[in-house]
């Protein structure tokens, strides 16, 4: 008996599947999806390639520059975030946020907008990605396939015939659900396959093992999402008597999910949880800067005895001292050993201010996300962005790694320069050299007569010839180079709640469909 039940479900599923395949709406929807994917995936891939090239160029320039640094003070390189290879599937915040952070002693890097420097007029148009095809076209296709599943059969009278047999209602419903799943998985899988084939045909695209897991989960999420939308259609179909009504209901719920909720939730979140006023925020930053200036002002170092200035240009727009007198050198050494720790401390303090701002940003974003949770389309979008590694959390992860790297760099410089007190922090002349140079220099300037001056000048020249200025780049053998390590496990964990939400939605919707269908009047 049980076996027969399964067979029955299967038979219904098969019949529905075949019927669906032949329909016009399915053909239109599926062909549109596939054509769009085939046309736009190459563009998305080309866009990725461009960003990857820019990234590689930036990284190479930066590394070349860092290898030219002459004194430790000028190690101020920039760290770039590699573009996410799966951004073609979900663009997320990839084009909104800055994928770079500068390493400085005075400042701890923090998330920022890419806007500065970029074209500020571009936000007038939205960003396109593969998930748009899913969330817009596939979702509406699912509704279109489902809307006449029950009410349409009632209108045709076939539902009566089916139910007059021994088959239970839940079996019919299950059969229809399976049919929908199979029907819709055809375009979904084709889109994934076409998309991946196009993406992989680009030589610079290489998917690692964890990327494949991500793609697999994206497929699961897409299927789960499609079935959610299908079940919405099924639910309306088993609530309405006429298929025209169920279609209208489906279309309106779709426009609410796709247009109203994603826009209105963000809009409302900015209203309900406004950000702190910029004045208040700036005032804290300013007061911190004042404190810093005060504390730096308290550091008194006598540099009045300095005689000669000879600074040269170094990498990253910095300068180094070439040949200076010993008074200045000692004063500068003392100044650095006192002020740099203060600056480091204030960098941490200003980070905590920045983070309280960011927290208000995140709070707003979380509220928007909570409000949009009603819409499976928003939930699906989130899941895809997390899985593609383009949502905000992956940027937070990047910036955390950059911060850890900055700490390493600070420690590196600290260890190399004896707690910022050594001359190599800012100058290429050693103390002994400088002392000797100062002595000879003073001999020239304090010479009593012409003859003494001439001989002193001669001695200075001699010494300068024997000790030429050696501006050599730093030896960076044990420099802690930055290596971006994406954390797939953590990303997958973050995607789980949304993925689970999609699955739970499925179960709940099936319950509702069942309740509605069990009471459906088939006449």
């Amino acid at each position, binding site marked *: 008996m049980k076996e027969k039940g399964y067979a029955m479900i299967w038979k219904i599923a098969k019949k529905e599947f075949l019927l669906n395949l032949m329909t016009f*709406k399915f053909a239109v929807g599926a062909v549109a999806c596939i054509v769009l994917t085939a046309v736009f995936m190459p563009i998305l891939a080309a866009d990725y390639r461009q960003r990857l090239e820019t990234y590689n160029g930036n990284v190479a320039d930066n590394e070349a520059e860092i290898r030219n640094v002459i004194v430790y003070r000028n190690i101020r390189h920039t760290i770039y975030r590699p573009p996410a290879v799966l951004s073609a599937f979900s663009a997320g915040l990839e084009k*909104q946020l800055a994928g770079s952070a500068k390493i400085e002693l005075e400042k701890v890097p923090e998330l920022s907008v890419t806007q500065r*420097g970029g074209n500020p007029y571009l936000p007038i148009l939205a960003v396109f990605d593969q998930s748009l095809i899913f969330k817009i076209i596939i979702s509406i296709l699912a509704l279109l396939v489902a809307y006449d599943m029950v009410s349409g059969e009632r209108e045709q009278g076939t539902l009566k015939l089916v139910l007059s047999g021994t088959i239970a209602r839940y079996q019919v419903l299950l059969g229809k659900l399976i049919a929908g799943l199979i029907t819709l998985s055809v375009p979904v899988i084709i889109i994934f396959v076409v998309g991946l084939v196009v993406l992989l045909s680009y030589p610079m695209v290489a998917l690692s093992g964890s990327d494949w897991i991500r793609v697999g989960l994206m497929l699961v999420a897409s299927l789960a999402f499609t079935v959610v939308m299908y079940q919405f259609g099924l639910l309306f179909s088993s609530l309405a008597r006429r298929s025209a009504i169920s279609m209208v209901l489906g279309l309106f719920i779709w426009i609410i999910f796709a247009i109203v909720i994603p826009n209105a939730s963000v809009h409302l979140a900015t209203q309900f949880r406004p950000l702190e006023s*910029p004045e208040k925020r700036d005032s804290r930053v300013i007061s911190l800067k004042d404190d810093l200036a005060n504390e730096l002002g308290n550091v008194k170092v006598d540099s009045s005895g300095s005689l000669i200035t000879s600074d040269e240009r170094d990498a990253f727009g910095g300068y180094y001292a070439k040949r200076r007198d010993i008074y200045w050198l000692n004063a500068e050494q003392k100044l650095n050993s006192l002020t740099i720790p203060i600056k480091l401390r204030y960098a941490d303090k200003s980070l905590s201010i920045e983070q309280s701002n960011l927290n208000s940003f995140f709070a707003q974003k979380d509220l928007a996300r909570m409000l949009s949770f009603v819409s499976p389309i928003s939930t699906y979008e989130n899941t895809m962005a997390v899985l593609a590694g383009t949502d905000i959390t992956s940027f937070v992860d990047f910036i955390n790694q950059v911060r850890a790297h900055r700490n390493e760099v600070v420690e590196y410089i600290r260890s190399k320069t004896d707690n910022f007190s050594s001359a190599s922090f800012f100058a290429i002349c050693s103390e002994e050299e400088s002392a000797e140079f100062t002595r000879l220099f003073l001999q020239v300037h304090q010479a009593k007569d012409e003859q003494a001056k001439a001989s002193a000048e001669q001695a200075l020249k001699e010494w300068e010839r024997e000790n030429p200025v050696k501006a050599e780049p730093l030896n960076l053998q044990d420099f802690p180079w930055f290596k971006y390590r994406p954390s797939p496990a953590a990303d997958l964990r973050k995607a789980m709640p949304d993925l689970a939400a999609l699955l739970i939605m499925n179960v709940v919707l099936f319950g509702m469909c069942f309740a509605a269908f069990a009471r459906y009047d088939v006449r």
Partner: protein
Amino acid sequence: MIRQIVFKEVLENLLSLRFVLSVLLTTSLFVVCGYTFVNGYGEQSKDYWKKTNENLSALREESNQLYKVAFYKQGIYRKPQSLGLCAEGFEQSLPNFFKVNAFTAELPDTEGQANFALPHFSHVDWVLIISLILSFTALVLTYNSICGEKEAGTLRLTLANTIPRHKVLLGKYAGTMITLAIPLIIGMLVSLIIIVPSKDVVIGGSEWLKILILVLVSLLYLSVFVLLGMFVSSRTGHSANAMAILLLVWIVSVILLPSFSRIVFDVIYEEPTEQELQRRLKEAREEIWDNHERYGKNAGSMSNNLSDPINNPPARARLQNAVTDATNQLLQEHHNRWLEQALARRNFACLSPAVIYQRACEAIAGTGINRCADLYGQVKLYRVDLKEFIRSRDMEDPDSLHLIGPERNMAYSWRTISHDPVDFDTVPKFQERDLALGQSLKLAIWDIGLLALFNLVFFAASFVSFLRYDVR
């Protein structure tokens, strides 16, 4: 006879579920739009006035010496527009802050905090509701207007009478337009009712006229979709098929096309980067400084003591002015490239009636990207005015060297620009001029023409299709 058909259509629509749903949905959105606009506008204009007054009072302090007025970097903010209610024009993410003194207007900047953690979203304004929700409703109302009647068999009955086909078509068109105008007008009225009593938002005479024009343009836009729906409906035998085609067309033209055009152009065009601009600026400056003798003897060197023989004030002023001119020129080019790229993307997206409509509404309401660019143009004109003012005032001071150059140190220590106090009331202040109605209409006329063209094409198409429609 047409009247009868119109009447029948309107009544039928009014009683349908889709009409009820669309009225509920659009009205509630218009309410949300009205309330959030009132809140946001109040805060924005408070903020705007505060910052503007801060800027003016700082300028007043500087007016104790003329040269200080010339060098003071004024911060000019974008004023919130009361017609942002109708078309916000993505102003939340467009530049809103301009820094200018008598010599240079810096590139537009975005001041304050846009929350970058939020996903890209459209402000809920009239344009969003009409271009997305109501255009969708238009399709839902019309997808079965012809093939549905064929399926029901009523089309045969209608046409069995003496009524010609074009009258049926016109009747249906008019009926649907009237039905569609109901949620449109109700919604607009509701949001205006929310706005008008609030004391922050002032809607004057010309604004009312603009709103009226916006209503007409909205109707024109919706009529495109009504005609499209009727066209597809008269090409297909089944209403379900008509719906499938219409949905596809709607999705592609309203949702996908705008974002397609962005990605396509992101790949084709190379974006002018900040580094490139800085490099070009540096090169231009170095070129001038390396050839400083071109501007006169000793132009490249300066000491604070005017009687020092190495000083050559006129040459120095020429050199510094050349640097500023080159900078201004490069900034201008950079800005033009930004603007060109953004507009190219949008012009490409103008295959979509929704983008055309958006652009027309922005032009009429005086918001959006064109307004930002125009504002920057006004800031630059203001800079010229200010410089002219400084020049004429400077002439009155016999102690000044009358060399209006952008080097502050020169003006300070050599008195190349007068140090006399200046009456603050006579100092020109920046005042944003909104475009007059005629000018904004001129901007929108192309878009309105395009919408009319769409209308015409779809009308002709649906007319021909319906004439040949097989009603069996």
